[in-house]
């Protein structure tokens, strides 16, 4: 679910950053959660993609109950490490597990909007073909944007006719997919902890510099 918020005076943000959303009930109770910004800076229009956690306290409310015009509190942008700036010339390797694609999508979009020529490869791991966020837009970007490559891999159910049987992304997959030269590649890994651990350990084993791998874990 993508939520578009109007935030007068928004100071701008970088692809990869997130915000804290705070909800307060009439009785004064309040809670907050962090959500990644799904799009590059578009002034006062701030876009969040929220994965609904069925028994969650905040995400089901945002997805089902929040009405157009309702106020929420927002704090951000947050994060100075897990960010990509369109001026950076290095190759960019993006590895997404599930909803971890959101901040990486902001980077794909920022690359498109800025006309950056930095080679970028998004490897996106999903359970089944129907779990792909931004599927149509990703197809379009991959078709139209020179230097952008998008690879979707499946962990539970591969599409009919797929060469790769469904399984979790492993070192052998990565060896075949990613740039072999590990120098000078900006690497961003985002997803559930098990995904981030497996992928970043595999990259280190392939010779990627641990200090150049930036990770963001969900839970």
């Amino acid at each position, binding site marked *: *679910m*993508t*939520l*578009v*918020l*109007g*935030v*007068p*005076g928004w100071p701008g943000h970088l692809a*990869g*950053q*997130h915000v*804290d959303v*705070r*909800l*307060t*009930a*009439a009785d004064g*109770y*309040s*809670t*907050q*959660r*962090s959500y990644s910004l799904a799009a590059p800076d578009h002034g006062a*229009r701030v876009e969040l993609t929220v994965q609904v956690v069925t028994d969650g*306290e905040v995400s089901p*409310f*945002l*997805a089902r*109950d*929040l*009405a*157009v*015009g*309702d*106020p*929420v*509190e*927002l*704090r*951000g*942008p*947050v*994060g*100075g*490490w*897990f*960010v990509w700036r369109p001026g950076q010339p290095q190759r960019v390797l993006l590895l997404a597990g599930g909803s971890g694609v959101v901040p990486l999508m902001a980077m794909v979009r920022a690359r498109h909007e800025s006309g950056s020529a930095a080679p970028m490869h998004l490897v996106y791991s999903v359970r089944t073909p129907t779990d792909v966020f931004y599927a149509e837009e990703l197809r379009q970007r991959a078709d139209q944007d020179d230097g952008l490559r998008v690879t979707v891999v499946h962990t539970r159910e591969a599409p009919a006719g797929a060469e790769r049987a469904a399984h979790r992304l492993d070192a052998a997959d990565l060896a075949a997919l990613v740039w072999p030269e590990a120098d000078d590649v900006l690497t961003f890994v985002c997803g559930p*902890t098990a995904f981030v*651990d497996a992928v*970043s*350990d595999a990259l*280190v084993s392939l010779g990627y510099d*641990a200090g150049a*791998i*930036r*990770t*963001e*874990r969900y*839970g």
Partner: protein
Amino acid sequence: MDIVTPGFRGRARDSSQHLPPGQYLVHDFPVLSAGPTPYVDTDEWAFTVTTETGERRTWSWRDLMALPQETPTVDLHCVTKWSKLATTWRGVSLDVLLEDVESAADFVLARSYGGYTTNLPLEDLLDGQAWIVHEFDGEPLAPAHGGPARLWSRTCTCGSPPSGSTGSTCSPTTSRASGSSWATTSTATRGASSATPATERPRWCSPGSAGAGRSWSPGATSHRPR
């Protein structure tokens, strides 16, 4: 004044009566870090304290194990809103490690394997408030959680991480959300390898990461939920 979001009630409070307002209970153990997990062999592991005069003291793993061990049990209330109750740790108090260290510093720069650093007041490390821990719930501390050993402090510290790692920041401007009477434990520092008393006043929240300068925007309104 808080902005009330119409229709938001939050979870039934009675199921979370042991939690500070706005926190949710986890039974797993979230991992918060900015990069790949460092795997450090205990044969190579060392903990070093360097003072402002350059004096160094180093403990090997064997040295650490030979020191008096304590087993603090605490509730964790992370700034990212998860809470984990009654966690038990085992390790060596910083009071023991810093006992013979001469320093006039007010602040400490803690540096971990993997390059992560954080700043905190020296007073937050003393008087039974911080340990180098190496066991969690009776098991050796896992690398993902900072194993083989990590710095562990009871105090709410506003460490500024080099990352967007959401768990490692603590913003004074948001303390209201969790109730100011509740201590928030930073779990950001992992695998502490050295603690360097710094003489300069540290920068708590750097621009670009979560910081005191970022205030809540009350005017955000939903345009188009779908």
